[in-house]
């Protein structure tokens, strides 16, 4: 027995259909920019393709040193915890969510800058997602947040189970 982890740096291939990708790339060295455009890279994915278990995408890229993302998950009904604990994640250039999806803990413990957080939150609002967790850098945690995004409820932090650092914002639109 030894304690090494994978040094995989790139997603090696396309997976048109994934059932239960929980922790699939967790703690791999997938770094830099991740372009996760499901309608293109997952051409046969269906709205229920991420199924199986309670949290089929939990920690799928967890703890990977990803620094920026572009994603279109409009065919994924819940991408729960997909990027959980990607603490180097600061930038997002494109965000598309499935309408009404659940993105609980998707970006917990990330460190998005203001522009990127705006893209994600606006996309989430447009799609009327049921829940979104997003970690933002401290510079963007200001009093204008509610008015800027029209959130009816903004909570800080979460329970101890997810080891939240205090930078997370839980967004709910009622």
């Amino acid at each position, binding site marked *: 027995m030894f304690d090494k982890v994978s040094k995989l740096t790139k997603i090696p291939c396309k997976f048109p259909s994934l*059932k*239960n990708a929980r922790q699939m790339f967790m703690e791999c060295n997938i770094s830099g920019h991740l372009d996760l455009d499901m309608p293109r890279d997952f051409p046969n994915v269906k709205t229920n393709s991420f199924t199986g278990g309670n949290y089929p995408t939990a920690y799928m890229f967890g703890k990977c040193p990803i620094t920026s993302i572009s994603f279109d998950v409009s065919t994924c009904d819940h991408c729960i915890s997909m990027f959980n604990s990607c603490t180097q994640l600061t930038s997002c250039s494109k965000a598309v969510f499935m309408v009404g999806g659940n993105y609980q803990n998707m970006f917990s413990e990330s460190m998005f800058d203001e522009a990127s957080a705006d893209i994600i939150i606006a996309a989430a609002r447009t799609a009327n997602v049921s829940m979104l967790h997003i970690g933002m850098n401290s510079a963007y945690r200001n009093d204008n947040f509610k008015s800027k995004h029209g959130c009816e409820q903004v909570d800080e932090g979460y329970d101890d189970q997810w080891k939240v650092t205090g930078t997370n914002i839980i967004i709910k639109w009622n």
Partner: protein
Amino acid sequence: MLNVIFYSPTKDEELEWKTYDVDGNEVVIKETTAVNRPISFACDTMVNGDSFFAYDSSILSFNGQMPSLVTANSMFECTNITEVHFNDDMANFNSVKNGASMFAECSKLKSVKIELNTLVNGEKMFYKSPITTLECPSFESVLYGQYMFS
């Protein structure tokens, strides 16, 4: 390179490798015998898990036509494997039914190339193996990828 043929055992048979040296002489290798040199496998069907547990060889190259591969734990903790190739003559080899922990904890496994379409169970398939190069050009479907590359 030696040609190593894996015979599909029944429950009552002993696992056995049929190999040939460079002069064409048959050499029988028992399941747990270490072969510390590159080998290739021409397989019809692999049905037994734990087939290569802690096997001591550096390169595994599956060149046979294996219509069915059920190999949970088959290469688990193989300490000297550095490369694994599923390639060549792959006409009937398009499915891994159970790849759970198949290459888990192979401490020197750096390169894997798998040309197949369907992976039914990839749970912990490469768990804690230091993969740096992985090619899966023909994957179409993966079910159960938990911890697959973790």
